[in-house]
Each structure stands twice: as C-alpha cells, then as structure tokens.
C-alpha cells in the first residue's frame, strides 16, 4: 500500500499535521488509520507539536470547577521546561504537580517555581492589581513588578492570561472580563454571571493530541475525561477533582 512513499517519510509528514487534520486522515485508508493511531506515532506527534514555539498547537481552555469545597487551588502547566504561568490572588502555591502521560503518574515539579505572580493590593475591590515577573527564571531575587492595573470593576480574582496577552479577570458577580493591559480597557465576555454561584474558573494550557481520541491508548486520570469534543487535551492540571465544563459539555477556548 505504501510502496509509493516510504513509511518513514509518510510518518514525518504526518507529524507535521495539526491534530485535527491528522485525525481526518484516519479516513483515507486502513493503513493510514493504523499508522496514525499507533501509540509510538502519537507520542512522536505530540513531541513535535510541543517543540514548535509559538505555533497554534498550544491552546488555552477555561474550565469551571464545580466543586468549590476544595480549599486550595493548584495551578500547573503540562511541561516543566516551559515557563510556568500562574494567576493566583494571594499566595503562590507551594506544591505543583503535573501528570506525566509517559510515566502515567503525577510528578511534583515544585522546584521549577513560578514565573508570574499576580496579586492585588489592599482590598479585594476596585483596587490596583500588581503583576510581578521573575525576570531571571528561577532566581527569586529577580522578581520585578511588571505593571499595575486598575480594571475598573470590582475584582474577584485573576483567572489567567489569554493568548492575546489580555488578562482574564473574574469580576464580582461571577462575570468574566478580559482586560487589555496596553489599552487599559476591559471587555465583558458574557461568560458566567450566575447569581449566587461563586464560579471557580480556571485557565489551563493544553496541546491537542490524537492520543485521547477514540477508545484506546491513553486514559485520562483524575482530570477532564471528556474535553467537550476536542481530540483530547494533554495538560498537567493539578486539579484532582472533577471539573465541570463551561456550558453543556463545552470547553471555552480563550
């Protein structure tokens, strides 16, 4: 079947396709299906995606924690070589775990430390918020105040950074707003806002992978099992509780 193009060349081409396009290729013929769903190919593909800087392979998604009983929130990233983005209103989490798909276990990466830290000054109201950055990664003396913002809304907490650089902010009343730091302007996103419900939104980064789709290969433990119909998310969410999706089974891409 593949005598026309050597298999290693075909695999090389496949690893360069975005996940969505690659999944469609499973319909081309049976041998392509078995190549694409082969576990060793899946990890090759995922590794390739993760080594491409600033491509669109890394997505952010927002999810809503539906069990607010948990006392502390843990933020983490899927890859310990990457900068760790963190938006937390008071203290930096002391323990950070990632779930390694390779090792099928949680791994503590607290030693990596944080890169960004957001905190508010004074009261949790219309006060200024400061964003600090660890300029020299890993060196705690290099913490520098990056900017001070005043959102103009009553702020509950910062949820995270959007791909366009905007801040995602949870305002009082559960409304999510997007804050453009350059223009110093905020936009209501029309998400959330359920009265009497204190939304626990979280923002995580993920890379689409073939590995989670279908019934085989990798199982997701502890985290998001049904990613609202995406091919699957590979991410190191520290959340061990069930998460409720935004809307009916939908992940909001931000």
């Amino acid at each position, binding site marked *: 079947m593949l005598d026309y193009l*050597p298999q290693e*060349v075909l695999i*090389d081409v496949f690893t360069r396709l*975005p996940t969505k396009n690659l*999944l*469609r290729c*499973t319909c081309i013929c049976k041998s392509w299906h078995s190549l694409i769903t082969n576990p060793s190919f899946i990890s090759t593909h995922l590794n390739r995606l993760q080594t491409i800087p600033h491509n669109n392979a890394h997505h952010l998604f927002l999810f809503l924690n539906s069990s607010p009983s948990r006392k502390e929130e843990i933020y983490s990233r899927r890859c310990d070589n990457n900068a760790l983005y963190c938006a937390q209103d008071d203290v930096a989490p002391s323990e950070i775990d990632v779930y390694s798909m390779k090792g099928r276990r949680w791994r503590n990466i607290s030693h990596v430390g944080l890169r960004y830290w957001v905190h508010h000054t004074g009261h949790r109201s219309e006060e200024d918020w400061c964003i600090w950055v660890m300029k020299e990664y890993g060196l705690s003396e290099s913490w520098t105040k990056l900017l001070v913002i005043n959102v103009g809304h009553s702020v509950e907490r910062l949820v995270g950074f959007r791909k366009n650089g905007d801040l995602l902010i949870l305002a009082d009343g559960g409304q999510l707003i997007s804050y453009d730091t350059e223009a110093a302007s905020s936009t209501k996103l029309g998400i959330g806002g359920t009265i009497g419900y204190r939304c626990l939104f979280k923002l995580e980064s993920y890379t689409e992978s073939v590995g989670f789709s*279908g019934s085989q290969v990798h199982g997701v433990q502890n985290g998001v099992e049904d990613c609202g119909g*995406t091919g699957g998310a590979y991410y190191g969410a520290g959340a061990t509780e069930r998460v409720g999706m935004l809307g009916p089974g939908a992940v909001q891409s931000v």
Partner: protein
Amino acid sequence: MASAPENEKNASAPEKKTLTLKSMINNEEFVVDEHVALQSVTIKNMVDSDCAGDVIPVPTISGEILALVIEYCKNHANPSASEDDLKKADAGIVAKDIYTLIDLVLAANFLDIKGLLEVTSQKIADSIKDLPHQDVREIFGVENDYTPEEEAAVRAEHDWAFEGFP
C-alpha cells in the same frame, strides 16, 4: 571585480574538487563542488568509502528534481548566507506543486539530506492538510479500502475533527 580579466580569475583560485551527479532517469549531468554535494549523507558515504567514481549515478531522481536538490545544497553550503536568506531560499525551492514536492521529498530521503527533507515534508503537510480525501488518496497513491459503513464509523470516532469539512 567585473573588470578583472577572465584568465586572471581562473588562475587565482586553486581548482576545486568537483563531483558529477547523473540522473539515471534522463541522463542529465550536474557538475557540483564536492563540499556542496557532501551535504548528502548518501553521497558522503559513497565518497568516504571510495565507492564514488567520476560520475555518481543517481537512480530514480529526475534532472529537474536533482537541480532543486543541488540548489538547496549550494545555498546551505554558502557560509555567508544568513538564516533569513536560507529560509527565503528554502521557501522558494519548495514553492512547487504537490507532485514535485513528493518527488523532492523522495530525493531528499534517498540522498539523506535532513534539512531538505524537513522543509519539504512540512510543505507537503501544509499543502495537503485541507484537501478533500479523494485528492489526498490520488496524491499518495492509496486506495480507500473502507466499506462505506466502516468509513462512517471511523469518521464518527473523530466527528469533531470534521466540523466544516465536506
């Protein structure tokens, strides 16, 4: 430079070692500086093990494709080329139709030229990613061996990937 007499130019530089690559498809020959040709690991291995004669026959690669390969090797053998220059030059080399790209990737694979293999594979991936399935099958010479029911089942497995796809 332009005013330098032709014979002076010939006399000043020591003669560079060259290799002749010959396409066995249409017998076209290319005389290439050795250091340019040695970017091909396959040719390097032949030269290193003294298997290379005056003319190196290159099977299954047409003259048209071989010319592209040599252009790539020349660009990348130029020490003064900046990364940007090379990127632009690479983009020019792979700005071809899909069938030429397939021939080119086969040539890069046979001659074992990693960089060319990478840019060509990437270009192929970019070119086919939104094509209808029947076109992809034609390009890669594969047959649809699914029954309509099986194909529908595979499609249903990944239905999210087909949103907006015919």
